[in-house]
């Protein structure tokens, strides 16, 4: 087998060194009662070429761009990724390295992550960012846990316009703890109704998502103010960070923690994972941050270099007292995002964000003039909610055969939003594809 280098001779001489007869003897310390009664019942090994066929066949059953025209967003976005990024990310020095615990052998990863932390902080308008968490959902859960750690209060407030899956994950992370979780309703314009928040007691953290699940831009500054007025920390979550290439970032609007999903910046969609948990805050909270941090330092000769730092927050030092249990994170995805941001640059980010916005506005307008209702009036970035006539489900099914995927049905998450669909338009959708969609929907 090409992955197993041992020849029979190798094995024989090594067994002799170890002083045993056979490979089986290696397991003398495994009691008989602990052993399998049957050999591994797995398919016979495939050659590389059989594997290619098997996997291509599976992949071929999945509806993917460019064959399909996909208007799905809802936390996972189709954006162009330059081949240069794919190539750089494939270099085995990055792919096959472990966590950079030995700085002298990991300067590549360490500088790249330090750069990632910096670019993310700049994008989100915060002072510092960590080296990544698993995904946007767990990042939000970690953020809210952090507000509880810092404030020692009991209540968690989260907007009902936050991605439903993120809210589910938050509930799961908190399920075994005593914290109370309060959900805020959303207004007719698609933004969060903050009224309940006024004067609320014992609130550790308040979380809004902007753009929110409906694609609407929230009144973040106002929410931050109210949160602070009740002594809570304010968290801005996001699933589409590209929006900050156009709209105000969380930091400038008063967020204490900004966290969310980084997939949209250079990471393949991959059926939802791996994504990238972006997590940023301010220096004053640095010792409460979950996850790894890379810091600037020098070597004994005074040369600039980078190291993992403030590890006393982490599980391998602090164990049960750690700020989080996270160990393996999303480094390679963080590298992808750093490479992507570096390729895009300030200029490119601005243009790309505008393109997403303008195309989305184009489709909204087209739907409006076709007589459909854009459900929420608040400004959006590259996602929005349309209300279709009852029975659109069947048309939606029908469009699948035409290889058009016309958005996500919201009733699944919000029963009251019957006939409402969430659609996404990025730079990958053409005017032609949008016109076609509107034509099809009209017919």
């Amino acid at each position, binding site marked *: 087998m090409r992955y197993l280098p041992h020849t029979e001779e190798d094995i024989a001489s090594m067994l002799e060194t170890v002083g045993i007869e056979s490979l089986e003897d290696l397991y003398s310390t495994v009691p008989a009662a602990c052993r399998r009664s049957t050999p591994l019942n797995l398919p016979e*090994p495939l050659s590389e070429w059989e594997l290619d066929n098997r996997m291509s066949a599976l992949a071929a059953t999945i509806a993917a761009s460019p064959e399909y025209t996909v208007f799905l967003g809802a936390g996972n976005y189709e954006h162009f990724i330059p081949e240069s990024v794919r190539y750089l990310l494939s270099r*085995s020095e990055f792919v096959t390295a472990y966590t950079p615990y030995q700085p002298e052998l990991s300067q590549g990863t360490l500088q790249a992550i330090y750069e990632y932390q910096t670019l993310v902080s700049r994008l989100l308008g915060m002072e510092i960012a960590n080296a990544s968490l698993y995904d946007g959902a767990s990042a939000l859960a970690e953020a809210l846990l952090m507000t509880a750690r810092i404030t020692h209060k009991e209540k968690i407030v989260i907007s009902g316009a936050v991605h439903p899956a993120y809210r589910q994950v938050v509930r799961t992370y908190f399920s075994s703890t005593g914290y109370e979780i309060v959900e805020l309703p959303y207004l007719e314009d698609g933004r969060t109704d903050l009224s309940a928040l006024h004067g609320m007691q014992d609130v550790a953290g308040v979380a809004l998502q902007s753009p929110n699940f409906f694609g609407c831009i929230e009144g973040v500054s106002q929410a931050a103010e109210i949160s602070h007025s009740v002594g809570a920390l304010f968290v801005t979550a996001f699933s589409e960070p590209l929006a900050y290439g156009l709209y105000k970032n969380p930091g400038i609007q008063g967020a204490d923690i900004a966290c969310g999903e980084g997939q949209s910046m250079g990471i393949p969609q991959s059926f939802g994972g791996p994504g990238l948990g972006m997590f940023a805050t301010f220096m004053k909270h640095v010792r409460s941050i979950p996850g790894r941090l890379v810091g600037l330092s020098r070597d004994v000769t005074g040369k600039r270099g980078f190291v993992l730092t403030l590890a006393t927050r982490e599980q391998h030092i602090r164990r049960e007292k750690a700020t989080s249990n996270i160990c393996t994170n999303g480094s390679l995805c963080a590298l992808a995002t750093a490479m992507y941001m570096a390729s895009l640059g300030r200029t490119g980010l601005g243009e790309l964000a505008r393109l997403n916005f303008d195309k989305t506005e184009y489709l909204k307008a087209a739907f409006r003039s076709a007589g459909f209702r854009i459900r929420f009036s608040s400004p959006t970035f590259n996602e929005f909610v349309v209300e279709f006539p009852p029975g659109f489900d069947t048309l939606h099914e029908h469009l699948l055969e035409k290889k058009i995927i016309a958005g996500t049905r919201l009733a699944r998450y919000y029963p009251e939003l019957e006939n409402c669909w969430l659609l996404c338009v990025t730079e990958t959708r053409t005017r032609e594809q949008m016109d076609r969609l509107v034509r099809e929907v009209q017919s």
Partner: protein
Amino acid sequence: MNQFPGASGLIFDEPLLWEKGANGRRGMSLPPRDVDFALPDEALVGELPDLPDLSEMDVVRHYTRLSQWNFGVDQGMYPLGSCTMKYNPKTNEKQAGLQGFAAAHPLLPDSLSQGALKLIHDLERFLAEITCMDAVSLQPAAGAQGELTGMLIIYAYHKSRNSKRTKIIVPDTAHGTNPASAALCGFQPVNVKSGEKGILTPEVIARVMDESVAGIMVTNPNTLGLFEEHIIEISEIVHEKGGLVYCDGANMNAIMGIADSAKMGIDIQHLNLHKTFSTPHGSGGPGSGPVCVGKHLEPFLPVPRILFEEGLYRLSEEFPQSIGKLHAFYGNFGVLVKAYSYILSMGPLLQRASQLAVLNANYIKELLKDVFHLPYDRPCMHECVFTDKEQHEQKISTLEIAKRLMDYGFHPPTIYFPLVVSGAIMIEPTESESKETLDSFVQAMKTIAQEAKDHPELLREAPTKTKVKRMDETAAARHPCLTG
């Protein structure tokens, strides 16, 4: 040092991204604009973040140069204990990159994502077979999240039986994520010592096990590379008092096709696909930490779960007792594709892989035990743990030994873990390394032991060949500078 790979050569300094570039430079093309400009609400529009503008070549050179400052499995032996740094087959990367997988949206209708659902379903079955457990969830994004999932299941299990238990038994050899995960779930970890043989004794467990204890977290093989021989008695003790047994299966690479978790009385076990199943560590992630459970705990697994009915795979949330979701979608699918490819390529040979991993570890143990102190001189599993005791009189510590290994062209083993042995040197060669490589590594370790006697300064000044010399980690922590 000629028989050793370590050498020095020309590489390149490279400034920080924002120390490069010039305004207006482009590193990526945008699609042509085919719609008019729309009017965003000026009140909401913000400043553009200060990202550097670089050309495509600027970016390519930057990361190509950075990559050369790294050490990966493809560069050399990486015997990092507890991390299973085995070879990451290139074809697995190719499979994960197939358009159908890489460009799949997670909210596709089931009918249009059958291949992805089948892959998840099959992989669950494979992992169940390998562990001898009944049901599997692939949702956890890494081992630690698998542990959290396990803890939440234990919590939900007891809750469902209206018992509220507050403690979890955690041996002193456990990985840091174990107590951290227990604590994150609100449990209070009860620390227990392993016996002088390096493994748990039923007695100590019996002493702490009572109705306030929700369960135990055992790592088997444990982090000393030893098989927990009394696991069955221990499970019985825990079960008797109504507790559950959680197994940290990060070290599964030692016992695939050998041990049976069910027989060992394990109720829940997580696996690290980025260890045992050859998915790359990617400089720290992403990984995947599936959780395997016995029938009695299946109702508590995270949703959505995958069902196969009338020839169709579909996602289902209808599991009222489920602990809920740990990931926005279905976990790290891209990683699952690689593990699936690996298992399809290995099949029943996975057992052989385990045997050879264990052979390699015992081979190193035998060849080094008269040079380095071996705290537990017993047959080991996939890794063996030495200490720096022999080197104390020369005032040489594990850290120096590790740094010196770099000059010889090897990545150091895991050091100072597990905490129960002071100055631990934890070596896990994995099955991927050939006898020649092991011999060269052993030679390097012996040479270093000799240097420790004759030229200790060589160790104190190490590494000398790396781009940066010994880094100052304390200064970094004293005045943290985390962004530029």
